[in-house]
């Protein structure tokens, strides 16, 4: 479904007036207004720019909240980071903006695939690459296509990774997982675990069928994806949340999952025999971009924050966050990691990353007919 944003209408808050009229504007409203916590009437932007409150309100996926992540930023700038960790989907993240009074959020971290649309609707602030540490970024992340709209930059890539095969190295060899076809192997019956999130899984299946780009499919091609899923279904023993899937692999009951470093690295570090690879058919990437909302009251603070989270210190910590490991686009950050960590994250050879590693990966996009995709997934699960 498409998110319709209209900042102008929002700020006018028609419904609010209508509501207050309805509730009676007498004593009731008086009492309520009297004890309203920092009533969030939108202040004039001019004054806001002149003297920004020393805070920045951030809606991010997990990792940012872990101990020590933001300390040096807060100390250096004196800006307090108000952080809300989002535990839903990108669509919900965007919806949350709508359910909060205008100007509540300054920064958020959606999948970059959502950025162009947000830019088109003027929900996000344009960024100047010169203000940001993109110069330190590895290729091609300095010019990651989905961070741009009509040639202008709106998002700063923050972390990324891939969906390939994560496998139990005691049960399967590297040769076994060369191809996605291994998923159909009789010995893996009931041993395949999948995340309950249709876009990456179906993207990988699309690649399996040789469709490239994987998220722009004809009705016929989508039908083939569905058919492939139906064939795969008996092999799949679990479709669960991140926690469940990872747990399932750790238990040794399941041997393989369509996933990359964000699952495998954690398992590996905890001593479970898991490795990850991109099979020959390829895989899809995942990523998160940092954006500044167009109606922010604190653009300067937000830019400082973007500079920090794009910088080496933060990125190197984010790469090995407790929540999940990820690859990071800042070369200096990668260089701060240990040799082992880089190897684990497929970032040992930074110069040839694009050529060797990314060649076979397609960016995770948002298909036009996303509802149909979701429906197929639901049917697949219900089988």
């Amino acid at each position, binding site marked *: 479904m498409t998110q319709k944003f209209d900042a102008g209408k929002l700020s006018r808050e028609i419904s609010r007036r209508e509501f207050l009229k309805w509730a009676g504007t007498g004593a009731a409203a008086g009492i309520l207004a009297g004890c309203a916590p920092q009533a969030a009437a939108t202040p004039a932007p001019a004054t806001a720019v002149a003297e920004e409150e020393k805070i920045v309100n951030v809606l991010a996926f997990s990792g940012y909240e872990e101990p020590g992540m933001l300390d040096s930023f807060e100390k250096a700038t004196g800006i307090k980071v108000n952080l809300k960790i989002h535990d839903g989907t990108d669509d919900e993240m965007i919806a949350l903006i709508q*359910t909060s009074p205008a100007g509540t959020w300054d920064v958020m971290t959606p999948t970059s695939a959502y950025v162009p649309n947000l830019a088109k609707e003027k929900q996000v602030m344009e960024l100047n690459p010169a203000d940001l540490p993109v110069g330190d970024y590895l290729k091609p992340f300095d010019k990651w296509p989905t961070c741009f709209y009509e040639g202008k930059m709106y998002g700063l890539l923050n972390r990324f990774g891939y969906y390939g095969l994560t496998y139990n190295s005691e049960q399967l060899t590297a040769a076994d997982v060369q191809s996605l076809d291994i998923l159909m192997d009789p010995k893996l019956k009931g041993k395949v675990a999948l995340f309950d999130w249709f876009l990456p899984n179906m993207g990988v299946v699309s690649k399996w069928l040789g469709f490239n780009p994987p998220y722009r499919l004809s009705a016929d091609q989508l039908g083939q994806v569905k058919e492939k899923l139906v064939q795969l279904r008996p092999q799949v023993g679990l479709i669960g949340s991140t926690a469940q899937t990872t747990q399932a692999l750790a238990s040794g009951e399941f041997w393989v999952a369509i996933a990359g470093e964000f699952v495998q690295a954690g398992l590996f570090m905890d001593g479970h025999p898991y490795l990850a690879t991109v099979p020959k058919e390829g895989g899809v990437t995942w990523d998160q971009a940092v954006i500044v909302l167009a109606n922010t009251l604190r653009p300067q603070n937000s830019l400082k924050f973007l500079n920090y989270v794009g910088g080496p210190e933060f990125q190197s910590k984010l790469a090995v966050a*407790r*929540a999940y490991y990820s690859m990071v686009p800042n070369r200096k950050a990668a260089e701060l990691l240990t040799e082992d960590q880089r190897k684990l994250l497929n970032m040992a050879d930074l110069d040839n990353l694009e050529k060797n590693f990314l060649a076979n990966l397609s960016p995770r996009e948002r298909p036009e007919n996303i509802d149909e995709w979701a429906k197929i997934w639901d049917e697949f699960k219900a089988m």
Partner: protein
Amino acid sequence: MVEGLKERLGRIPLILTLALTGAVIYLPILFVVIFSFNSGRFQVFPLKGFSLVWYQKMLSDTAFMDALRNSVIVSLGVGVVSTIFGFLGAYSLVKAEFRFKDLLSTLLITPLAVPGVLLAISLRVYFYSLGWSFSLLTVFLGQLITNVPLALMVIRARLLQIPLSLEEAAWDLGAGRLRSLAEVILPMTIPSMIVSMLLTFTFSFDEFIIAYFLTQFELTLPIKIWANLITGYDPTVNAIGTIVFFLSLVIVFFGQRFILGKPYQKG
């Protein structure tokens, strides 16, 4: 003799049910406690080894400590305010007479029959319409909805046990309404106020869905736990769960005198 034996045999399935129910209720808690001491990150058997690492992590995690502090602040506020509101309301319900009293009494307890998710969403829309920002204050206001009626019911039950003649005796001996309230009613209601505080504090401390919808940055403990569980399978929550469980056991056993205590015996 045969009859007695049969009766005694008839008890066995009942005792088994009790034991089994107890086991099932404690199973998840046992699970949490065990894995809070397991050095491995994932909650799978076999265990990796004994470790206090998750407790250390918990103590050094400022976000958890902030959430704990926020929860304590909100729950204390909810406990105190709902008990005060509950006491005043219960006193009036017991002592005053007015039209539609039955209707009002019923309305006052309806929040207990409305699912939290519904209250949460309605307040989210409401506060949004009023242009309020979401904070601990909105969580506090939201959680009061169910806790004020709860406090009111607990305290009212106690007030109904106090013979009216005691207050009348005080009036007769020269006390006004407030004086008799302070000298007679209040001291006799204190046990129920303690129960009310304990209950509302713990209900608020554990409340998830209202807090989830009504706060922005200031997380309460259940939201923090939820976020960690959904996104990061972090065993630190096992450490927290274990500590919360044992602390509440202590509170429950300390408070049992009040919670299950015998009602007022006539002087």
